[in-house]
C-alpha cells in the first residue's frame, strides 16, 4: 500500500453537510486512527449515515474537509476510493438474482483492469470469505432467494473481498439473529485488531457498541455530542438527553463493560420541557405520599424528578410509570452514598423542591438533610399535613431536619391545591435563561 501509515485513516475537519436546505451534519470533527473500531450511534436522523456517505464520497461536504488515509476524499478517483474504503450498506435493493459467489466477486472490480476476468486466487478468497460468514456451500444460491440475514452476511463478504484498509458498516446487525450479531462483530473486531483495518460502524444497539467498539461517537441533530471509550460515554444521562429514554446503567461484573437496560420512554411533555430553561421540579417522597403530587405536577406540564425512593415503594412505581428521572435505592435499605449522590444531583438540577408528607424513618431521613443543603438557594415547599411530629419515626431526627429546612427559607403549604399555584408563581417569577442572560449583559 502506498498510503502513509501515519496518516489518520479517516479524518473530518469541521465538516458540515446538507441535503438541499436541510442540514444533516454541522461542524463535525473526528479523527479515526488505523485499526480503530469506532461505533457511530445516535437517534434516527442524527446524521450517522450521512457521515458514512461523506467518507465514501457519495456526498460532498458543504464545508470542511473529509480525509481518507491522508488524501481528501473528493480528490480521489472512484476507483481509488474503492481500493481504500468498502461499505456494507443498510439494505441493498438488488434487482438481479445473482449467485452469491458472483456477488462477492463483483467486489473485486476496483482491482481489475478492463476485460480482466476473476483471477483464480480471487475465487478462492471469495469462497473462504463466504465460509467465514457462515455461508459455506451456499455459493450458487441466488442473492434474492436467501434470507435477509444471509444477504447481510454475503454483503459483508463482498465488502471484505475489496480488501480495503477502511471498512464502513451501516447497521451491520440489523437483520441478524443474536448469534450472528456476536459472530459478525467479533469478526470485524478481529480484523481491526489483527490487520489494523479501520472500522466505522453505525450501530443502534448501544450494548453491542459498548461491547465491541474501542470508541463510541454519539451524534445528535448532526453534531457530535459525546466521543470516547464506551465506559466514559454511556450514561443514563446520555440516554435521557439524546434519546429521551429512561434507562439503568449497569456494569458487567467480569469485564466492566457498561450495559444499559432501557426502561421506558420519557413522556412527550417532560421531554419537550427538558430544555434547561424550563427547569425541573424535584419531589421527595416515600410510602405513596408523593403519588398524587407526582401525577398532578406531570399533568400540569412540569418536568418532574423524584427521589430518593426505594424499590417496591408505590411512589417508585408511580415515578417509573410517569417516566421520571429518579434516584432509587434497593428495598428497605438505608440510602447508600451513591444513591444520595444521585439524589443530590437531581436536587442540584431542580428549580423547585417539593417535600411530600411522607413517613420519615431511619432509612430515608437523609433525604431531608440532603434537601437542607439546597433549600437555601432553591425554593422549597413542605407539605405540612399531617404535621411532621406525627410522621417522625426516626427518633426526632426528622423533626430536627424539618426545622432546619424551615429555617433556611422553605415554605410550608397545606395541601396540593395550595402547592400548585405557589409553585407556578415561583417558577414563572424565577430567573429563566433569557432573563439571566440579560442580567449578565447588564452586569458586564
Amino acid at each position, binding site marked *: 500500500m502506498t498510503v502513509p501509515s501515519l496518516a489518520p485513516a479517516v479524518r473530518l475537519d469541521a465538516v458540515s453537510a446538507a441535503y438541499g436546505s436541510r442540514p444533516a451534519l454541522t461542524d463535525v470533527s473526528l479523527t479515526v486512527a488505523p485499526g480503530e473500531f469506532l461505533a457511530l450511534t445516535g437517534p434516527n436522523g442524527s446524521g450517522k449515515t450521512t457521515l458514512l456517505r461523506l467518507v465514501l464520497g457519495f456526498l460532498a461536504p458543504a464545508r470542511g474537509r473529509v480525509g481518507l488515509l491522508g488524501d481528501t476524499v473528493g480528490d480521489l478517483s*472512484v476507483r481509488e476510493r474503492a481500493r481504500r474504503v468498502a461499505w456494507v*450498506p443498510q439494505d*441493498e435493493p438488488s434487482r438481479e*438474482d445473482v449467485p452469491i459467489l*458472483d456477488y462477492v466477486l*463483483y467486489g473485486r*472490480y476496483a482491482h481489475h483492469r478492463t476485460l480482466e476476468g476473476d483471477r483464480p486466487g480471487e475465487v478462492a478468497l471469495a469462497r473462504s470469505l463466504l465460509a467465514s460468514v457462515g455461508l459455506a456451500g451456499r455459493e450458487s444460491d441466488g442473492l*434474492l432467494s436467501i434470507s435477509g440475514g444471509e444477504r447481510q452476511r454475503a454483503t459483508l463478504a463482498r465488502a471484505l473481498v475489496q480488501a480495503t484498509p477502511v471498512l464502513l458498516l451501516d447497521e451491520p446487525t440489523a437483520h441478524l439473529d443474536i448469534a450472528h450479531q456476536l459472530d459478525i462483530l467479533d469478526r470485524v473486531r478481529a480484523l481491526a485488531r489483527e490487520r489494523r483495518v479501520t472500522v466505522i460502524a453505525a450501530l443502534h444497539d448501544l450494548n453491542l457498541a459498548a461491547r465491541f467498539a474501542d470508541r463510541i461517537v454519539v451524534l445528535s441533530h448532526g453534531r457530535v455530542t459525546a466521543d470516547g471509550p464506551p465506559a466514559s460515554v454511556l450514561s443514563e444521562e446520555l440516554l435521557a438527553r439524546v434519546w429521551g429514554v429512561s434507562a439503568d446503567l449497569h456494569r458487567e461484573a467480569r469485564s466492566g463493560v457498561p450495559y444499559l437496560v432501557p426502561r421506558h420512554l420519557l413522556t412527550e411533555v417532560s421531554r419537550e420541557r427538558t430544555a434547561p430553561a424550563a427547569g425541573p421540579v424535584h419531589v421527595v417522597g416515600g410510602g405513596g405520599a408523593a403519588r398524587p403530587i407526582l401525577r398532578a405536577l406531570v399533568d400540569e406540564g412540569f418536568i418532574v424528578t423524584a427521589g430518593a425512593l426505594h424499590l417496591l415503594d408505590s411512589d417508585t412505581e408511580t415515578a417509573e410509570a410517569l417516566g421520571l428521572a429518579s434516584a432509587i435505592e434497593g428495598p428497605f435499605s438505608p440510602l447508600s452514598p451513591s444513591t444520595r449522590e444521585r439524589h443530590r444531583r437531581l436536587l442540584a438540577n431542580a428549580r423547585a423542591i417539593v417535600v411530600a408528607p411522607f413517613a420519615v424513618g431511619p432509612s430515608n431521613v437523609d433525604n431531608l438533610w440532603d434537601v437542607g443543603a439546597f433549600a437555601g438557594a432553591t425554593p422549597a415547599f413542605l407539605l405540612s399535613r399531617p404535621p411532621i411530629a406525627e410522621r417522625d419515626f426516626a427518633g426526632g431526627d426528622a423533626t430536627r431536619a424539618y426545622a432546619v429546612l424551615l429555617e433556611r427559607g422553605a415554605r410550608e403549604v397545606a395541601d396540593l391545591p395550595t402547592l400548585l399555584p405557589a409553585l407556578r408563581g415561583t417558577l414563572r417569577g424565577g430567573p429563566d435563561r433569557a432573563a439571566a442572560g440579560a442580567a449578565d449583559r447588564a452586569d458586564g
Partner: protein
Amino acid sequence: MGAPDVAPAIRPSRRSARLVALVFAGAGAVIGSVVLESVLLRPYPIPLATSLAILVHALSGGRLVPDPCAGAALGPSGCFGATFIVLNIALPEVLLAVIVGAALGLSGGALQGVFRNPLADPFLLGISSGGTLGAAILYVYRFGEAQADLYLPAFAFLGSVGTGLLIFGIARGRQSSVETVLLSGVAVANLLSAVLSLVLLDNPFGAEQLTFWLLGGLALASWTVDGIAFGGVVAVGTVLCLYGRELNLLQLGPEVAQSAGVDTPRVRLQVILLASLLTAVAVAFTGIIGFVGLVSPHIVRRLSGSDYRLVLPGSAAVGALLLLGANDASVVAFPSSYLPLGIFTAFAGVPFFLFLLLRHRRAAAMGPP
C-alpha cells in the same frame, strides 16, 4: 412463489457450450433464411436447390459447386438474374435483419441494465421514436440528400440520444421505479409523435417516404447499407459489451456500485449514449422495430443467468436470431409482399410485454422474497 427466474448454478463450461451452440445455430439460420427468402418471396421463383447452390458457390469463392445453375432450366440470363436475387437482394436483407436484430437486442440488454428495469426497451422508452423524428426531419427538409446513407444515421442518432438522455434525466431522480421509467417513455414517445405529425403537416410530400419508418422493414437493404450498419453496430456494440462488469454492479444499486469503484454517473451516461447510438443505426435503416430489445435479454437471462458479461453479447445474438425468425415468419406467412417487420414483432412482442408486466406486478405485490 415459483422457482427463481434464473437458473443460478450454471457451470461456466456449460455456459460457453451453449454460446457455441448459439453461434452455429445462428449461422445455420442465416443460410436457411436466405434460401427461404429467395425461394418464397420473389415473383420469379428460384428452385430451392439452385438458390442453395448459388449461395454455396459464392461463399466458397466458386471452389464448391462450380456451376450453380446446372440443374435448373434457367438459361444464362435466368442464371444471372437468380444469382443477383440471391446475392444482392435476399442476402443483404437477411444480413440486415441480423445486424439490426443484434443492435436492438444489445441496446435492450444494456438499457435494462442501466435503468435496472426489466421492461426497458429502446422502442418502449421512445428512443426509437426520437430516432424516427431525426430521420423525418432529414427527409422532410431534404438536408444532404446526396449522402442520405450517411446523414440518416447521424440524424437518427441525434434524435435517439436526445430522447435517451431526456428519459434518463426524468427517471434518475428518485428510485427509478418501473412505472416512472415506462410512463416517462410513453409520455416522451407521445410528444415525439406529435412533433412528427407537425413536421409532416409542414411538408406533406415527405409523408410517403416516412411511412416505412413508422412501420419498420428491411426494404432499404443493400450491400452499402449493410456495410454501414455492420460497421456501426460492430464498433459500438463491441464497446458496449465491455460494460458487463459495471452493469453487474449497477444492479446492486448505484451507490453500492460506486463504493465498489464504478463511476456510476459516468457509466450510466456512457451506456445510454452507446445504446442510443445502436438504436439509431437500427432505426436509420429499418425504421421502428419494437420489442426485440425487450425480449432478447429475458431469453438470455433464462439461458445463462444474469451476469451482464454474458447478457450483453447474448442479447445481441438472440436479438439477431429473433429478427431473423420474425422476417422468416413474415416471408412464410405473406410471400410476395413486403410486410413491414415492425408489425410482426409487435404482434409477438406485445403479449410478451404484458406477460412480463403482470408477472412484475405480482412479484411487487408479494414483496421482496
